[in-house]
């Protein structure tokens, strides 16, 4: 398989959580695909289901329904959700995660060396100790960690360094896909830039595919090739980055873009305020989930749920009025 082919094809993913007799539809019928070597961004507010979606993809959760079709390096098609746990383990090597909080995602009682080595121990128990350590050293150096400090514990490292440890741990198995769940959100801006640059370099070097989940739209715009916008467990819009940011077709995307703080006092955008709060996913509104907060809402929107479909090439939208509305996005330089 070559660069640009579909590596992951998620179809109609549904994830319901049950708690105290209430069913929460965290992810409702989401479909998207990711191509090899690209970065796909997923944005949305907290509680929109973006993390749950990421976890469904790696099968950290057992989705209620749907398919996650994965193309192996041999070109074989496998449904992650159909295979048993043992077989899944074999593929887990190829799809790894980097987490948000560099403080709580590392075991404080393990040395950094052991933390990075752990995935190797779990997946290649027969590997020689020297070989393992050499691999750990190589990866640690790649992500910019000083290898003389690897015998230290995580507390001795700064936030940015810890995130590098998390990246090294994900990379040590030579994965093909990495799910980055808010991986740079907890870092200071200057450190954030360092880590983003690192992710970029690693992608080029190893041909990695990223699923980049974040609420930070500037970061997502910078790093992603294509972006999906989620609202209340549903994908409402999905398009190539520039298209989505310059010509959004869903009113929610428009509001989201207008709320992004721009680091230039002379270029302040007109805000399109969203009224109210995100509805309770246990009791979502009828019709279009967004109609309660949408300023373009019509009667139809409150009754009939819009279909998520490809309105322009590669531009998927779920809105009844997507084609008639002229929505505002960012102006691009070129």
């Amino acid at each position: 398989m070559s660069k640009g082919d579909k590596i992951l094809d998620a179809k109609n993913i549904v994830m319901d959580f049950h708690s105290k007799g209430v069913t929460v539809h965290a992810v409702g019928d989401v479909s998207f695909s990711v191509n090899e070597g690209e970065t796909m961004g997923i944005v949305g507010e907290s509680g929109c289901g973006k993390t749950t979606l990421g976890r469904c993809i790696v099968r950290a959760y057992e989705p209620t329904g749907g398919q996650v079709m994965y193309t192996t390096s041999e070109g074989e098609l496998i449904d992650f959700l159909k295979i048993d746990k043992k077989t899944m383990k074999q593929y887990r090597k190829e799809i790894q995660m980097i987490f948000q909080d560099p403080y709580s995602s590392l075991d404080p009682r393990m040395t950094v060396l052991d933390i990075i080595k752990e995935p190797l121990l779990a997946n290649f128990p027969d590997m020689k100790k020297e070989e393992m350590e050499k691999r750990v050293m190589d990866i640690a150096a790649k992500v910019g960690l000083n290898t003389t400090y690897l015998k230290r514990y995580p507390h001795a490292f700064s936030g940015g360094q810890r995130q590098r440890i998390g990246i090294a741990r994900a990379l040590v198995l030579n994965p093909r896909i990495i799910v980055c769940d808010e991986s740079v959100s907890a870092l200071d801006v200057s450190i954030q830039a360092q880590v983003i640059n690192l992710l970029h370099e690693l992608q080029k070097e190893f041909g990695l595919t990223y699923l980049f989940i974040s609420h930070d739209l500037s970061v997502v715009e910078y790093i992603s090739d294509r972006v999906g916008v989620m609202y209340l467990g549903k994908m409402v819009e999905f398009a190539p980055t520039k298209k989505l940011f310059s010509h959004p077709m869903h009113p929610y995307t428009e509001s989201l873009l207008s709320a992004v703080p721009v680091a230039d006092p002379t270029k302040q955008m007109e805000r399109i305020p969203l009224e109210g709060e995100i509805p309770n996913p246990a009791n979502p509104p009828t019709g279009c989930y967004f109609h309660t907060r949408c300023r373009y809402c019509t009667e139809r929107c409150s009754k009939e749920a819009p279909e998520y479909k490809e309105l322009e090439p590669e531009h998927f939208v779920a809105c009844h009025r997507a084609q008639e509305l002229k929505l505002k996005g960012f102006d691009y330089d070129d």
Partner: protein
Amino acid sequence: MEQDVKKTVPDHDETIIEVRDLRINIKVDEGTLTAVRGVNFEIKKGETLGLVGESGCGKSLTSKAILGINDKKCKASGEIIFDADGLGRVNLLELDPRGKEIRSVRGKQISMIFQEPMVAFSPMYTIGDQINEATRLHITKDKKKSKEISLDVMKKVGIANAEKRYNQYPHEFSGGMLQRALIAMALVCNPKLLIADEPTTALDVTIQAQILEIMKELQKDFGMSILFITHDLGVVAGMCDRVAVMYLGKVVETGTAADIYANPQHPYTQGLLGSVHKIGTKNQDKLFSIEGTVPVAMNLPAGCGFYERCGKRIEGVCNVSEPELVDTGCGHKIACFACTGCPNAKKEGKANE
């Protein structure tokens, strides 16, 4: 609302608060942290000053020093001159942190909004009770009247169903609503200065936009000054009149927001602005990033605190003595030996200190 506070605002001096050479040392097991190392700034009436910097640069300590609510381990020196009603111009640092005078200032004339609304409220009391606490302490002992005042402010910050919300507990509020309630609590006494410490960092962008909008409106209504502390350069651009950039316990550059964003001079400010990607600009292959990390503020070597990470450092100059904050002539002040000055400034750079 009681209007007496507003009337007594003196008109002879526009400056509301002036921080001069503020230093804060913290005793820890390993030695002494020089967390704040000589901070200078002033805030004028009705203006918003953005205090920007990365974690650990001392911005929160500075703001807490103003209210005298830092930990006992923190020893502050310098001057914080505040034009207090009933006290005149006082150095807040000289007041007893548990005394009567500071209490007439804290929460009434200067109030604060914290980063995490979930932590700032006590889960044991209703929102109404907690807003009322300030009202009863500073405005009126009358229960009915204070409730009226509190409800009024709750409505002003955009809490729908204020009567019902008044009797609810913090866990019944969403993050955004709770932040509104916190703002209501801070504004109920009509303060002259509002300190907002990362007020929107924990919120989603859409909610953040709502809260910032409300803060701007309320600032117009109440005529207060705001000290806005954040690490988010995007938020600063939309909110602040002037900006002070802090690094390692010092203000390294300060000026009007327009000036700082258009002509950042200090290498740190340039780095900070460069590492934020602006949507719509052409994707550079690499984001600009500042090498290395912030050093620990203990036993710092002589010279500029940014020396190790600076791309413009001059050996033999920058690592020998520490640059002072110097006015380039147009109010744009920079603490850097390698900077030639603000292009807007007339060429009469005069020392500030």
